[in-house]
């Protein structure tokens, strides 16, 4: 079946035209926007503790530059521009979570040292592998399962707005404005201001309204807030028992994502209700599962850490495995279709299996080389692979890393497709621990390197398939998006690594930093996500540079990581339950329920309200109305919060 060629046939006497899609302008603007966003978001994430997805911003900036300033960008060209920008930007999410851990543990990564470049190279390999692994699943996720990808849909609404008519454009704009206005008081308190007495405070937000209850549950001498800067505590307002948390995030983005997802998102809500309204109260009141002295108001938090999160991650993995198993015939059909296109007329539509196979092969070789070259882990007698020659160890770790990257990419892309959220941190923590157990506790650099490659990889996989969803909705040729994303995504990890290096150098030169802390607590870039990872690395016995040197000098015994601090059984039982959930009519159910047990409840509830609103509106006004007016409005809510969030982050960074 014929697909598309790049040149439109023109009537006799007229010159054939080539529709503007992949152009030098689109690629250059995309690269510039992507590099700037990557550098700024890397810094912001290290400072404020969370990253920001950039596709919506990239689409708006690309739109403004190509259509506004240059006056020649088509919808498809702007789509390529945002594809390039987000591909360059997104790897920062993986690097900022992992690499600072090495600085915190005293490992010296400098521009002249080999480890810096090897980890950067592993990041590039991860980016390429993430894209290459997920490309063959495009048909499965977008065309067959028809996952919604709320942000991808929102970006498509922005791109399509010129032809949508003034009414729809106004609805999109109204959504953006309402999203920004509602989110603004939640974000403003992040901005530091100098008080009259010389102290540093923050701008007022929702919490400053002073809507408080008449109880002080945590005994801090202040009555608990019903409306805080980020959340609305409906449970407190309605007098629910303390162990039942009915907390709603003030997040137009979550509400919009819920609406765009519609009815399937109710499964996420069901999982959240199961975890926080059923499991936790029963565990506290009847099963005595909380540590002695746990207060009822602390149950949601403790329950999440003790069992909901590990069981949730297990369910994600089991649910995804069952999903893959049930989808094998569909995957086979999709792969056959891609393979069959080779040499045929349809080959211009989809990147063929040959280039993808080459990219994956090169990526795996790269991962093996990086594992062999990275310092610290050779001949560690404490790892599970300790009896094997280092070549075999490297092969096994690289093979395990590659396989896990493929599987994790599927999990993350499915989660993003169904809900817009991705459990990257949970998967990364598990990866680092598993590599430490394989390689031994001296292999911290190698474990963090594989963790970085995995984080970058899964971020890129989710971004790739999200961009392809946008592309589908605007009619872009997948092959063009896939090729361009594969070509540029490797730039991202290098930019993020260089930014971290610059930050470390700046911190070390800071006269106030008397302890010479390179990054983390005690500096202006606290890197909270990396601190969580560092705690886990230390928890399973991973060695700091100082301890490693002492051990090599014979100062301390080498007993190896125990790994006992990780609740493997809960992961395993969760995987079994997640897999079994998929046995019914909906193979992805385990992924959805697992994700909602893993995530904090306040986002789940706001998201769930979005799903419920969709169902009510669909019943009252019809599904066509929902798609035609509701989705653009909610796309606006997503964009409004994303843009406001990045503007606030930029102000925080500039003002500090």
């Amino acid at each position, binding site marked *: 079946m014929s697909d598309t060629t790049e040149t439109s046939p023109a009537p006799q006497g007229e010159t054939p035209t080539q*529709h503007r899609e992949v152009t030098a302008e689109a690629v250059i603007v995309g690269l510039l926007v992507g590099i700037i966003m990557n550098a700024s978001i890397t810094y912001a994430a290290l400072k404020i503790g969370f990253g920001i997805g950039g596709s919506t911003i990239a689409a708006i900036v690309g739109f403004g530059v190509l259509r506004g300033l240059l006056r020649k960008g088509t919808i498809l060209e702007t789509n390529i521009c945002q594809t390039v920008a987000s591909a360059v930007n997104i790897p920062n999410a993986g690097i900022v979570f992992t690499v600072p851990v090495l600085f915190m543990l005293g490992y010296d990564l400098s521009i002249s040292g080999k480890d810096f470049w090897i980890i950067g190279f592993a990041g590039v390999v991860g980016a390429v592998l993430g894209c290459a692994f997920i490309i063959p699943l495009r048909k499965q996720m977008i065309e067959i399962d028809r996952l919604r990808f709320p942000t991808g849909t929102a970006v498509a609404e922005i791109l399509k707005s010129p032809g949508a008519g003034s009414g729809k454009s106004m609805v999109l704009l109204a959504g953006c404005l309402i999203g920004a206005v509602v989110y603004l008081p939640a974000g403003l308190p992040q901005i530091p201001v100098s008080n009259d007495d010389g102290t540093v405070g923050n701008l007022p937000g929702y919490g400053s309204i002073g809507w408080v209850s008449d109880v002080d549950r945590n005994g801090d001498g202040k009555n608990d807030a019903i409306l805080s800067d980020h959340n609305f505590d409906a449970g407190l307002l309605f007098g629910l028992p303390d162990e039942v948390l009915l907390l709603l995030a003030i997040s137009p983005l979550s509400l919009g994502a819920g609406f765009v997802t519609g009815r399937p998102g109710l499964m996420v809500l069901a999982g959240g209700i199961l975890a926080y309204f059923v499991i936790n109260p029963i565990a506290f009141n009847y099963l005595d599962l909380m540590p002695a002295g746990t207060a009822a108001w602390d149950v949601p938090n403790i329950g999440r850490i003790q069992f909901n999160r590990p069981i949730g991650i297990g369910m994600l993995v089991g649910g995804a495995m069952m999903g893959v198993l*049930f989808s094998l015939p569909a995957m086979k059909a999709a792969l056959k279709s891609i393979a069959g296109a080779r040499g045929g007329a349809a080959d211009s539509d989809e990147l063929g299996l040959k280039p993808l196979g080459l990219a994956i092969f090169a990526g795996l070789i790269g991962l093996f080389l990086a594992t062999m070259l990275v310092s610290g882990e050779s001949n560690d007698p404490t790892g599970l692979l300790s009896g094997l020659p280092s070549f075999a160890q490297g092969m096994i770790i690289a093979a395990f890393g590659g396989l896990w990257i493929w599987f994790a990419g599927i999990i993350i892309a499915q989660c993003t497709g169904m809900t817009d959220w991705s459990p990257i941190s949970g998967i990364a923590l598990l990866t680092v621990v598993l590599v430490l157990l394989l390689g031994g506790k001296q292999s911290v650099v190698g474990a963090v390197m594989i963790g970085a490659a995995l984080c970058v990889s899964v971020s890129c996989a989710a971004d790739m398939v999200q961009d392809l969803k946008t592309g589908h909705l605007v*009619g872009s040729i997948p092959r063009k998006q896939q090729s361009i994303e594969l070509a540029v995504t490797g730039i991202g990890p290098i930019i993020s690594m260089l930014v971290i290096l610059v930050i470390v150098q700046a911190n070390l030169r800071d006269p106030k930093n008397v302890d010479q802390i390179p990054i983390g607590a005690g500096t202006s870039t606290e890197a909270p996500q990396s601190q969580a990872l560092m705690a886990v690395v230390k928890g399973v016995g991973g060695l700091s540079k100082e301890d490693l040197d002492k051990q090599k000098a014979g100062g301390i015994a080498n007993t190896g990581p125990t790994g006992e601090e990780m609740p493997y059984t809960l992961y395993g039982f969760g995987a079994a339950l997640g897999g079994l959930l998929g*046995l019914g009519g909906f193979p992805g159910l385990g992924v959805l329920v697992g994700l909602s047990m893993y995530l904090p409840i306040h986002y789940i509830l706001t998201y769930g309200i979005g799903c419920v609103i969709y169902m009510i509106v669909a019943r009252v006004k019809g599904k066509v109305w929902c798609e035609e007016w509701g989705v653009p409005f909610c796309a606006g809510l997503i964009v409004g919060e994303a843009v406001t969030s990045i503007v606030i982050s930029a102000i925080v960074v500039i003002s500090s």
Partner: protein
Amino acid sequence: MRLAGNLLVALSLIAGVLSAATAYQVSLDHGNEVYEGLVLTAAAGLRLDQDGKPVLSDKGAPEPLLVLGSPLTSDNLKKLRANQKALAANPPEIPGYRVPNGKIRVQKFSFARWDQSWIFACSVGGMILGAGLVRTAASRQATVHRESGKSEDLLKALRDARQRLSQLQQHLDSAGDKIAELPHVVDDLSQLAGDLQVNFLDHLEVIRSLLSTGKMAEVMESYAVAERFSNRARSTAVDQDPYESERCLAAAAERMSHTIELLEQSL
């Protein structure tokens, strides 16, 4: 049957998660040898004063007897058991807190120590049975769909879409001022997308129940290509490129025909 199956799955899931959560929990009733080499991964017991009342912190929280990380030596076990007896004999009332009932949390899992394993096994059985009921219901539903002519409705929606795409393409082909026709193309394609959503995509469950996974994949893949061409025709029409738009309309109609053929063959 579907409702019963889903209910069974939901209840089994709750039981499964709750029993799984107890995997690292151990009662204090075993002999000391069972706890050898174990440490606490959660604080246990409550510190009691001379009157047998819990010792409270400044914030009013009861203080635990043993903190996280304490090894389960025979001395500590003795303390915990005595504490448990005292708490059971005279249960204190501490608003906002629960009194521990003699279970502790350790860092290693063992089937031998796991009291709730039978609940987990039952929940696994319940989930399998529930899934079976759901699948049986789905298979009956497929028969109903087949007999009620639902598949014909889906084919009708696709045939209608093909006709509208072809008409649009022919209309654009024959138009004198193609640029002037493009806004209509944009409107009609937006309308078509909405109609297909309601008449075809919202009934994917029907298709799923009627076709095998492989056939479903083939049909949906072919449909998606038609849809993408239609979306491209719309985007290029917005950008005033009538030739690319016309070419995509033709390709979309052609792909829609292919989808109809596939669906007809598969049903």
